[in-house]
């Protein structure tokens, strides 16, 4: 088994026949079910087809030294995106704690069907590593773009719509502040957790996305400086701070579990921190699909 897993795709296609390949694929298909702990239901996922979207890029952009909105660009998602239908639940997370692979939470949820909250990036990464070991698949956090693609119509473009007013940086701060105040006033104050599914499905069948739980992404804080023509002059990144996505995009230090204490002095922090994972698509997903197409039923 272990040997089979280590074989790379080129080795397989060049050295093994179709029959052997089919045998290996059958083994691989069987593998996840066998590896799962008896009480661990396989995560439900949604497969979002490849495509394009107009996306407000993440990152702090400045043009000629003045802060500006990040560019809105056509972004292509090249491969199918397999993402958890629901956020990881308190019950899921408890199994990882029981396996001593995840750290205890400060305030465990009162019921298992609530999404797990109060988790840091470290906690989410621990869970992904554990789930990957348990299932034999690769689970990881989505990038900012992947999250936005899965969120579809629920993604909120939170650009200020202001061009940098070189003379008055406060316009930007005031606009940010008003937007956040607006969000809170418009029911963004509904911070009570709902059992998974409580915020409904979006057009891709992804549940609860952009509800009242912000989700960790694998995307680090970026700073991009542009010249007057909009060409990139330089970019720095800080992976101590990651993008969290929800009703708006926020930046969060990796060890923060409770965003109320992670906010800055005048911002409106996310309500809760949770996560969902994407399953890395590999040749093992492609092979059975190919086989199904080639072999008679």
């Amino acid at each position, binding site marked *: 088994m272990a040997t089979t897993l280590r074989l790379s795709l080129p080795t397989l296609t060049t050295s093994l026949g179709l029959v052997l390949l089919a045998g290996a694929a059958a083994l691989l298909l069987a593998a996840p079910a066998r590896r799962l702990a008896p009480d661990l239901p396989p995560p439900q996922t949604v497969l979002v087809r490849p495509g394009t979207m107009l996306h407000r890029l993440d990152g702090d952009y400045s043009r000629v030294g003045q802060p500006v909105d990040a560019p809105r660009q056509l972004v292509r998602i090249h491969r199918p995106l397999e993402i958890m239908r629901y956020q990881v639940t308190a019950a899921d997370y408890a199994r990882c704690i029981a396996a001593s692979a995840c750290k205890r939470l400060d305030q465990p949820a009162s019921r298992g069907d609530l999404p797990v909250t109060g988790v840091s990036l470290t906690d989410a990464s621990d869970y992904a590593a554990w789930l990957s070991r348990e299932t034999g698949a690769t689970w990881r956090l989505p990038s900012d773009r992947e999250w936005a693609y899965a969120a579809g119509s629920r993604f909120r473009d939170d650009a200020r719509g202001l061009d940098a007013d070189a003379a008055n940086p406060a316009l930007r701060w005031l606009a940010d502040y008003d937007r956040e105040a607006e969000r*809170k006033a418009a029911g963004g104050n509904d911070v009570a957790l709902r059992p998974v599914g409580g915020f409904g499905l979006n057009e891709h069948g992804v549940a609860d996305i952009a509800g009242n739980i912000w989700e960790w992404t694998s995307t680090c804080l970026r*700073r991009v400086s542009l010249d007057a023509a909009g060409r990139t002059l330089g970019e720095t990144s800080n992976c101590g701070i990651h993008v969290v996505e929800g009703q708006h995009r926020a930046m969060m230090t990796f060890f923060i579990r409770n965003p109320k204490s992670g906010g800055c002095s005048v911002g409106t922090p996310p309500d809760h921190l949770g996560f969902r994972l994407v399953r890395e698509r590999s040749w093992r997903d492609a092979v059975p699909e190919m086989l199904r197409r080639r072999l008679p039923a």
Partner: protein
Amino acid sequence: MGQDRKPGESLTLTRRSILAGAAATGAIAQAAAPAQAQAVMTKVTAEDIAKLPRVKQKLVDPPFVHPHEQIATGGPKVIEFEMTIHEKKIVLDDAGTETFAFTFNGTVPGPLMVVHEGDYVELTLINADTNELMHNIDFHASTGALGGGALTEVSPGERVVLRFKATRPGVFVYHCAPPGMVPWHVTAGMNGALMVLPRDGLKDGQGKALKYDKVYYVGEQDFYVPRDETGKFKRYASPGDAHEDVVKAMRTLTPSHIVFNGKVGALTGKNALTSKVGETVLVVHSQANRDTRPHLIGGHGDYVWATGKFRNPPERDLETWFIPGGCAGAALYTFLQPGIYAYVNHNLIEAFELGAAGHFKVEGQWNDDLMKQIKAPAGI
């Protein structure tokens, strides 16, 4: 008005000369009184007061303050206020933590009342018949009877009228002080502030008049909400049910919440305080129970009466000012830059973990001379 004594004479009496002299006890007491106090301490008869003009002043909810003159026109008046006490459940934070509040006029803090030195405050205090407890009011600005507390004990369904003379200019706390339960009532939000302005308005200490375009009232409150064994905040059916646990929590001297105007975030977002560049704002800040240290992040206190008494010259250009528990302070500031300012208790744990923070939204033109980002953050 003090016609038999020139103010200068009493001022020259030092403590030593009083002790050395063989003056009668009564004379010492009179001579030691502050010179300016003489004017308002002259004996006045009931008929004199009856002749004074009366003004009915409607109170407004904090952080706003009822309309008032900064410089008094005419002589002393009797200013009538009415407040109804409501015991009510309030929500302290976004997580929905509840507590029973005892309120003057339905708000935490109670409303800011404004009069002038020499005016008479005439308060009608009503204890709503839906309440369960006896309440009263102790005005730190008043003299005698435990600040009026001994004369204002009202049970549910009763009303009382108290009149007192505002003899000392400044901002002062008022609070409920029922025998045996004072800290419980005060930390249930039952306090507010009274501002007694000098008749000729605020001064900078060197004779220059100070005026404000706007005044806000910030009442800071420490709450002590009991927790269960798992650390969750407990809920109770009535104030009486909560009493024993709350007192236990109070005795830890560790507040669960420290907030401005009754709730975490009460002065933020849609309810942020507003101003504009060039506008002068007076912030009256009271804390009836616990020390605090206000600070305006990104700004200053141009003129600050930290302990709130206007006969003392204001301190200038302060970064942070200390208001002891049981006191109100006042700070005057003219905004010079637009943007968002945080107004906090600069024990930042109390501000950002427990809630003692509000925001100012200030519009106007940016001043590059005061500050400019020469180069935005970029790679080294």
